[in-house]
């Protein structure tokens, strides 16, 4: 429940809103499209800051590979814009709406960056943090500051954009982002191995990633119709050559087949919407070393979980009953688990983020106080 909602249209209105909130001792929850509002502990008594009023493209220069947009701009708007210039956001950001049973199209770029959201291509192209060149933002102290720049190569000062990407609104309210964009591939195709168990699938994905086939994304869907999918993209002659490389490298895993465009689109869309997993169970996002993917999957299965693997085994999405825990298993394997979806009671009792060591969280807290001295972003959500 929120007290009320503010929707500033300019940075000045935003800093004024901060000044008022600081004066009144209110806590701010920042939202864009609110597609991820059900992640984290339910929080109350916060003032909602709706960033969608800060909207629009500031500058887009395709040959410079640089795009500057206001934070409240919809992701879908940006994706259409860059596609019109045969470019892409290579970290393949996606919309969380469908994961929560909502319509797609509401996510904003500010929310994507603040939550560090990246899709299957993160494996080869890097995540949101890797494509964020600069930010303008208002700190918890109510001050507008910039960090980074509008060029693709820059090491001037600390890389605060990386710190802000994935900070989930706990350091600053982002007003504008500058992103690196890249040429969209001229062609893409998905090769699959059928019917492998997860042990074989993880080995095959590792072999594919270690080959010269430049695999852009690698994922495994288990079950009767188990599919291990490898996406190749780029120039046509190159993709054709790389299919051959891949087929040779993976020959001992079985015949490599190609999906049709429609089948491939459906497969990768499934990894964004998580349609293959039950929608009525708590959902975990688990990051582990890729080689541990099979081991993790077996442990999850033993607890009755449904799962799928992305990032060549390094990312597991798992739907599991609320009474089951996954964090011990994940920590054993050298990774961490984020609770993405669950009933309010579970989210109130289980922190969304994996607990860290005492020394790490002490440092994190000092950084949070550096950017948010009055604890204006400490809403209890994380």
């Amino acid at each position, binding site marked *: 429940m929120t007290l009320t909602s503010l929707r500033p249209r300019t940075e000045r209105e935003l*800093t004024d809103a901060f*000044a008022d909130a600081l004066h009144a001792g209110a806590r701010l929850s920042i939202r864009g499209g609110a597609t991820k509002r059900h992640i984290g502990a339910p929080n109350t008594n916060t003032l909602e800051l709706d960033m969608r009023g800060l909207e629009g493209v500031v500058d887009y220069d395709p040959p410079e590979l640089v795009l500057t947009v206001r934070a409240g701009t919809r992701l879908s708007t940006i994706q259409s814009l860059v596609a019109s210039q045969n470019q892409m956001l290579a970290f393949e950001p996606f919309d969380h709406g469908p994961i929560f049973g909502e319509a797609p199209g509401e996510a904003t770029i500010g929310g994507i960056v603040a939550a560090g959201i990246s899709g299957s291509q993160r494996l080869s192209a890097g995540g949101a943090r890797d494509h964020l060149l600069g930010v303008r933002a208002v700190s918890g102290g109510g001050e507008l500051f910039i960090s980074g720049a509008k060029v693709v*190569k820059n090491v001037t000062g600390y890389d605060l954009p990386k710190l802000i990407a994935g900070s989930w609104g706990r350091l600053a309210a982002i007003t504008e982002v500058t992103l690196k964009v890249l040429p969209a591939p001229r062609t893409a195709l998905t090769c699959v191995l059928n019917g492998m168990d997860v042990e074989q699938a993880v080995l095959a994905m590792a072999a594919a*990633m270690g080959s010269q086939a430049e695999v852009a994304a690698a994922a495994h869907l288990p079950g009767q119709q188990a599919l291990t999918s490898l996406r190749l993209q780029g120039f046509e002659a*190159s993709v054709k050559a790389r299919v051959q490389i891949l087929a040779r490298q993976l020959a001992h895993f079985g015949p490599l087949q190609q999906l049709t465009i429609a089948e491939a689109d459906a497969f990768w869309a499934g990894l964004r919407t998580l349609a293959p997993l039950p929608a009525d169970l708590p959902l975990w996002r688990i990051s582990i*070393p890729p080689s541990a993917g099979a081991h993790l999957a077996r442990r999850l299965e033993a607890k009755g979980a449904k799962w799928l693997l992305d990032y060549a085994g390094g990312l597991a999405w798992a739907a599991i009953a609320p009474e089951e825990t996954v964090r011990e298993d994940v920590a054993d394997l050298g990774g961490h688990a984020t609770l993405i979806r669950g009933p309010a009671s579970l989210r109130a009792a289980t922190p969304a983020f994996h607990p860290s060591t005492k020394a790490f969280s002490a440092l994190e807290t000092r950084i949070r106080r*550096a950017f948010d001295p009055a604890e204006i972003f400490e809403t209890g959500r994380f």
Partner: protein
Amino acid sequence: MPEPDQSVLARREEIIAALRAIVPGEGVITHADSLRAYESDGLTAYRQPPMLAVLPETTAQVAAIMSYCYANRVKIVPRGSGTSLSGGSLPLADGVLLGLSKFNQVLDIDLTNRLVVVQPGVTNLAVTRAVEEFGFYYAPDPSSQIACSIGGNIAENSGGVHCLKYGLTTNNVLGVEFVTIEGEILRIGGRHLDPAGLDLLGVIVGSEGLLGVVTEVTVRILAKPEAARAVLVGFPTIEGAGQCVADVIASGIIPAGMEMMDRPAIHAAEAFVHAGYPLDVEALLIVELDGPEAECAELIGEVERIAIANGAVSVRISQSEQERLTFWAGRKAAFPAVGRLAPDYYCMDGTIPRRRLPEVLERMQALSAHHGLAVANVFHAGDGNLHPLILYDANKPGELDRAEAFGSDILRLCVEVGGVLTGEHGVGVEKRDLMPVMFSEVDLAYQQRLKCAFDPRSLLNPGKVFPTLHRCAELGRAHVHAGQVPFPDIPRF
């Protein structure tokens, strides 16, 4: 640099004894002659021997040194191989120089997860050497890769000629073991993507030794491409070369490397290595494509067409690995080659939006005339990172000052056209005082708030990056200004 603290210098013997108790044997260096080896890094215009140097061999020793220095308020300057071009490891007269050269082991090669775990003193090239027999390599390749250490690469977020396609250090590091100034040992990241919590790795990379000391590094490695081919293109104008770069990228090609040299740099490089560069051109481009043979063949043809359409007067495509390396030999030797034209040179490192290149080079020529010093340019053309090399003679009175003034003017120009002070060399001591050209006081205060969260006593590499050292307590005061009433129609709290 900050004035040496006499009270610390007075305690020198006591500090030496305490550090010898942590690092026995030869690991604590105190003799003036031996300390001279550390008095400067790759930015040789600045020299200062440290109060003493310590070369620990274990993480526990690093933690004990940090903890002692924290408790006793002794400053620390970390150092890898000392190849910084911005004075990042310039010592302090009242500080301990913490050298990581003994951390020189490759700890693990994990081909399944495509990563290598190394100690920070391992050189950049040694990472590739360790995995090339398995068909892998480490992508960031700063020109100093034979000598520079991975720990130093982390500190400076080093790039290289391949970073447009493969990223800077920050895009290729998965995790570090990190010692804080209080002597806490933290593991940040690991063998997985997207570590939990705030992205501390993101700010540690590129922090220029101001946040802590890295004692172990996990980097990702890539399969070595099947083929690499280069094309060497000469243009009668800078504009033609610049437009060619823009058109290559607009066509959807991200070359593995795309380097430009101006006339003085071309002539210097050709005289030095005889790479067969054309001498009757104003700009030379080296474009390298890598990937499957079929891709290289297709794209080389496309680049050639784009080059000719932009008025290229000479186009040579490498016909062998030997020839490809010859094309690069001139570019890679550009710094020493230009170094033969004058007793000293000063290398700058701004980045600009590429479309402003012709204008920037023209204005640089005017600045060259104004300061009475020649300049040669090499340029990571794909990502807009300029390396103007200013020629001077340090033995002539006033020339170093003029070279620095010229360099500052170039960097101001880079910022004026929408670029930045440094693309890959770091701020260090060199560009510290120019930070306000790019950032407001508030912007810098947030940088420094981060610094204070890691290093509340400002003991780690002070005098670098920040033009003014605020005491952390001063920054702690929340700055809140009373705004006008912005939303008159909502309930006030």
